[in-house]
């Protein structure tokens, strides 16, 4: 394989998952498939995915565009129903959107006619709770994402990075057990994107939320995650699991270390293998 010193397990061996079974699983997805009916017959968007995420763990799913990683995230979020298999969040089977989950989308998707604070309180409205009880929490989160002075501003007065930070605060306002992030930095420019990764890592260190992060950027996944699931192109399957042992907190300089480069190289190598198989 060429990377003997790194802890790599092909998913089917499952030794890593076995070791840590005693810890509480926030998310357990068992052989989840999503099948679309298309003109060429049934198409698998996601094929028998097994994913589990433990409390306080930051897990990324990395895969090429169109591999179904976002579809899987929508299944976990209760927005798309799986054709087969079962998804359980905090012991409850997912049947639709629930208060246990907060989603950060690829685009900020803020309401243009609502202030930053009102936008952050949207999940509270949606859950039918009283917003006045969450004002302090909204301000705390605004402070956490560095937007304290912007509470009364409207989204179009904010830069793309700032808007996405509002999106992150919004996903956290109802204190969900699981934070789902669907390529949250994909629409940002490269510089902002790096800075956002650092900020998210800091934020995660402070909160230790359970996160399932979707991305197609290998460095981003390595920088942020405890564990990376590598997904094959359609039909999407988890083909490898890579554990990231890098120390936290992770400063931006970590991206230029040898260990970081090796991990990225290892995952890139895995992708080459997959696409090699696909071409045969």
């Amino acid at each position, binding site marked *: 394989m060429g990377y003997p010193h790194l802890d790599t397990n092909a998913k089917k061996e499952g030794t890593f998952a076995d070791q840590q079974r005693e810890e509480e699983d926030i998310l357990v997805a068992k052989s989840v498939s999503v099948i679309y009916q298309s003109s060429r017959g049934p198409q698998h968007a996601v094929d028998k995915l097994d994913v589990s995420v433990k409390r306080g763990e930051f897990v990324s799913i990395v895969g090429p565009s169109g591999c179904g990683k976002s579809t899987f995230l929508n299944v976990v979020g209760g927005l798309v129903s799986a054709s087969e298999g079962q998804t359980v969040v905090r012991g409850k089977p997912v049947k639709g959107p629930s208060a246990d989950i*907060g989603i950060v989308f690829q*685009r900020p998707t803020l309401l243009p006619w609502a202030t930053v604070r009102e936008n952050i309180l949207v999940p509270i409205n949606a859950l039918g709770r009283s917003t006045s009880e969450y004002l302090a929490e909204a301000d705390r989160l605004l402070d956490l994402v560095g937007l304290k002075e912007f509470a009364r501003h409207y989204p179009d007065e904010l830069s793309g990075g700032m808007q996405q930070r509002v999106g992150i605060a919004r996903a956290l306002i109802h204190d969900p057990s699981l934070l789902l992030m669907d390529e949250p930095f994909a629409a940002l420019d490269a510089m902002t994107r790096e800075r956002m990764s650092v900020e998210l890592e800091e934020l995660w260190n402070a909160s230790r939320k359970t996160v399932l992060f979707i991305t197609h950027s290998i460095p981003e996944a390595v920088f942020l995650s405890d564990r990376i699931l590598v997904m094959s192109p359609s039909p999407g399957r988890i083909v490898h699991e890579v554990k990231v042992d890098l120390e936290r907190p992770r400063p931006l300089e970590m991206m230029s270390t040898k260990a970081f480069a090796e991990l990225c190289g290892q995952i890139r190598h895995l992708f080459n293998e997959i696409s090699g198989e696909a071409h045969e």
Partner: protein
Amino acid sequence: MSDRLTTFVYPTISFIVLIVVWTLSIDFFNVPNYILPAPGDVLQQLKYGYVDGAFWPHFAFTLRSTLTGYVLGCTCAILVGALLAESRTFEKFVYPFVVALQSMPKVALAPLIIVWFGYGMSSKIIMVGLMCFFPLFVNTIIGIRQTDPALVNMMRSFSASKWLVFRRVKLYAAASHIFAGLQISIVLSLIGAVVSEFVASSRGIGWLIQASLANFNTAQMFAALCSLIAMGLIGTKIVQIAHKRLLFWDRQKDTMTVASH
């Protein structure tokens, strides 16, 4: 300054030129008064109508029927439009009839409405309401249907009810289209009022125009037309100002006007 120049000074110049050419050509071609009255005669009529007060009852009648019909028609259009955009079942039952009605020229209904609702103001109100209804109804549906699906999906992901999604997202998303419809409806409501006064009435600016025809009082006709222009302009301006004030997030984008007529 240059803004002021384009909005006030230039139109004023064209207006003065028009009046001068108008006055001169009447003298030059010797046009009889009942074909084209001189600007002075029209001004005389306006003074007679609004300073001496002869037109006020007519103006008030038309304004009241137009406003009442406009408010009624627009309210119904927004409510029914929203219901239709949100309910597929309702759409299946109702939409084909709406399309059929829409393709008919509404003014053709004026005589029938007179038969049903009488010569008084209520027939005028119904006619105005009917004229306003369709463009705004269609715009409301288009506006709601054009809501960014990502926003709806976001709301859904946080367990929002259908009603909350409508109230917090779709209504705002449709607001720009609704205002475009409100603006078109101003002019259409005046058409409705005038036409139904043409058909049968004993008052109103439309009636005044017909009465002027009977007397070949073309100057009075022009004065009545000026009143209608004023109503239309002021109404449109009010809607525009309300649009700018209320839809602050929409300022950058130019208002897209979706006309159905």
